[in-house]
């Protein structure tokens, strides 16, 4: 009986996966040495923990929370206050453990607020989290003693006695602290999915009524999971406080909560690793895309819209579906279609992008005249030719994209059919 569920060969894969993850965390800063890269990498670690903790609610528990930033944000505030207490000598705590203060704050607030929110599920749960998020944000502006008002609360992470020569002054030292926390937190959150509570949380997501009839209190399952998610959210917030050395009220705001939801969904809530992809994209979008274009939020909205419509499982499910196709040796048949899809989508995006940039240029840069450069192409936002050209490119792209998309769907359907048949055939053997 027992060898049914002990996956000896799979364990090697697991060692490999986690070893690779540790290796990536360790060598990433060596490959991208610039200051910007270090900032981006540090933020990625923080975002990964936050998005994974959010997915404990969304993906694993079916809890659509609109207020997860409450737990990361309050974790940040408690951590920065703890850091300042360390600096003033009233709290004997090494700086490397300050993120844990954030984690404990996350637990505390999740115990408090979760008691209210997790009594309900579905839409009611979502609404209560939204309300609580607004409440905490309003409070943050009303209590400047704790939240620091408009300027926020700042701190200095180079404090206390340096251990082993680590002062946390240079960004690379902070990065490695974040990397260590990220590795442990990701490992712990993955382990959670393999425990009785983790599994019952999935069961509550799928069919809460049935759970009640196998002896479990669904509210309690949700509540405990919510507290655990709050812990990791708080850790993420604590790391952010150390990383930025300043915490402002926006970290508990609805925009932040929305970003967690959006990017967790974009990465893929149905797979454990989905939110990791989402978190990486979140940081890239916030740091790089926002530098690249003023219209970045609009592009983000468009991407989100397309994902919800065409790939509701997120990027992770796209990867997994293609892996399945590859396992049955059919991926080669698709690469031409993929190339066509990519090229036509690019044409579509170029046309749409040119128009969006022209609109933004007209609205925001009126003093600079109507001329602008879009990817090296000179455009005139007040000339009919530029608009006509951009529209033509966009419509051509749209038309070709739709044609290739239909062709692709047809091929995809055939391959899926083949795989289903193949599975049935292997089952019957």
């Amino acid at each position: 009986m027992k060898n049914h569920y002990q996956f000896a060969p799979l364990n090697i894969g697991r060692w490999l996966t986690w070893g690779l993850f540790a290796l990536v965390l360790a060598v990433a800063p060596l490959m991208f040495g610039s200051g910007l890269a270090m900032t981006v990498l540090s933020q990625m670690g923080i975002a990964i923990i936050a998005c994974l903790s959010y997915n404990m609610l969304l993906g694993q528990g079916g809890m659509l929370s609109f207020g997860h930033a409450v737990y990361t944000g309050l974790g940040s505030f408690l951590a920065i206050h703890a850091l300042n207490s360390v600096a003033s000598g009233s709290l004997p705590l090494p700086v490397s453990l300050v993120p844990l203060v954030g984690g404990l704050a996350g637990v505390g607030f999740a115990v408090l607020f979760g008691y209210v929110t997790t009594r309900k599920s579905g839409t009611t749960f979502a609404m209560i989290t939204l309300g609580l998020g607004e409440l905490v944000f309003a409070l943050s502006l009303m209590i400047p003693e704790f939240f620091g008002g408009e300027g926020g609360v700042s701190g200095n992470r180079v404090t206390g006695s340096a251990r082993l020569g680590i002062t946390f002054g240079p960004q690379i030292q902070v990065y490695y602290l974040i990397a260590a926390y990220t590795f442990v937190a990701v490992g712990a959150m993955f382990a959670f999915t393999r425990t009785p509570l983790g599994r019952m949380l999935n069961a509550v997501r799928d069919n809460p009524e049935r759970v009640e009839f196998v002896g479990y209190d669904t509210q309690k399952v949700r509540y405990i999971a919510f507290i655990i998610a709050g812990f990791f959210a708080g850790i993420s917030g604590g790391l952010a406080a150390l990383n930025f050395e300043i915490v402002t009220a926006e970290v508990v705001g609805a925009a932040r909560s929305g970003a967690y939801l959006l990017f967790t969904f974009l990465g893929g809530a149905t797979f454990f690793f989905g939110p990791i992809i989402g978190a990486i994209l979140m940081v890239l979008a916030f740091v790089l895309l926002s530098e690249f274009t003023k219209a970045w939020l609009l592009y983000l909205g468009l991407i989100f819209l397309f994902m919800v419509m065409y790939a509701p499982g997120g990027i992770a499910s796209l990867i997994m579906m293609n892996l399945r196709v590859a396992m049955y040796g059919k991926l080669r048949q698709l690469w031409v279609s993929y190339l066509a899809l990519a090229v036509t989508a690019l044409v579509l995006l170029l046309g749409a992008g040119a128009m969006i940039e022209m609109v933004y240029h007209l609205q925001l840069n009126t003093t600079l005249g109507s001329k602008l450069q879009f990817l090296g192409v000179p455009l005139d936002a007040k000339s009919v030719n530029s608009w006509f050209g951009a529209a033509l490119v966009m419509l051509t792209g749209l038309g070709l994209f739709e044609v290739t998309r239909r062709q692709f769907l047809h091929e995809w359907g055939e391959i899926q059919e083949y795989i289903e048949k193949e599975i049935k055939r292997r089952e019957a053997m």
Partner: protein
Amino acid sequence: MSGYALELKDLRKSFGKTEIIRGVNLAVTAGERVGIIGPNGAGKSTLFNLISGRFAPTSGEVLLNGQRIDGKKPFEINRAGLSRSFQITNIFPKLSVFENLRCGVLWSLGYKYTFLKFLADLDDANERAEELMQMIKLDKKRDVLAINLTYAEQRALEIGITIAGGANVILLDEPTAGMSRSETSRFISLIKEVTTGKTLLTVEHDMGVVFGLADKIAVVVYGEVLAFDVPEAVRANPRVQEAYLGSAVADSQAGGH
């Protein structure tokens, strides 16, 4: 101690001004198999919902092994040793067959809400889930998601989840609903097999099924128990024939099924 596995005392339930269950008294001895029959809308499913805690009764008592369970929550009643299935298949669609069954056994083995142990290390839970999977003959579908099973397989899984926790009193709400004749007869022998030694209450429309499965039959009409006796006596009961059974009994006596 009353000595009964399950006892209902003057159980009543109203929805608004309409009384659906109108004073039901029923005493089921441990190990008995009871079939509950009655016309549509007689209150059979409501009765199950009252016993299992889905609804709270308006008045009256429900006793499980002599302990009052009326007004308690479903999970408390389940922990006390009563488990039920549903008329509309009620499983965990996105979990595998094995995971479905393991979810059913976890509480009864005392694992509660723990998140400090790995599922893979819970030998007793895993062995029990494997056993159940063989009992309901789904061991070949171990890792198939429940949503991808055939209807009959899903019904079997529903029974598997229901008996997984080792409850002594089992309520099955139309276990064979929507099945073909041949599937039904196979399924009935499966139910008999997996509920051996347990107290069983079944709501069933198919007369052949009821008379083949039950030691005793309760006839529910308009929220009241019209008769509660061994099948032969129920068949012979003129009030039952008049109120509900009629030709169905005659069919069954002719050895139709």
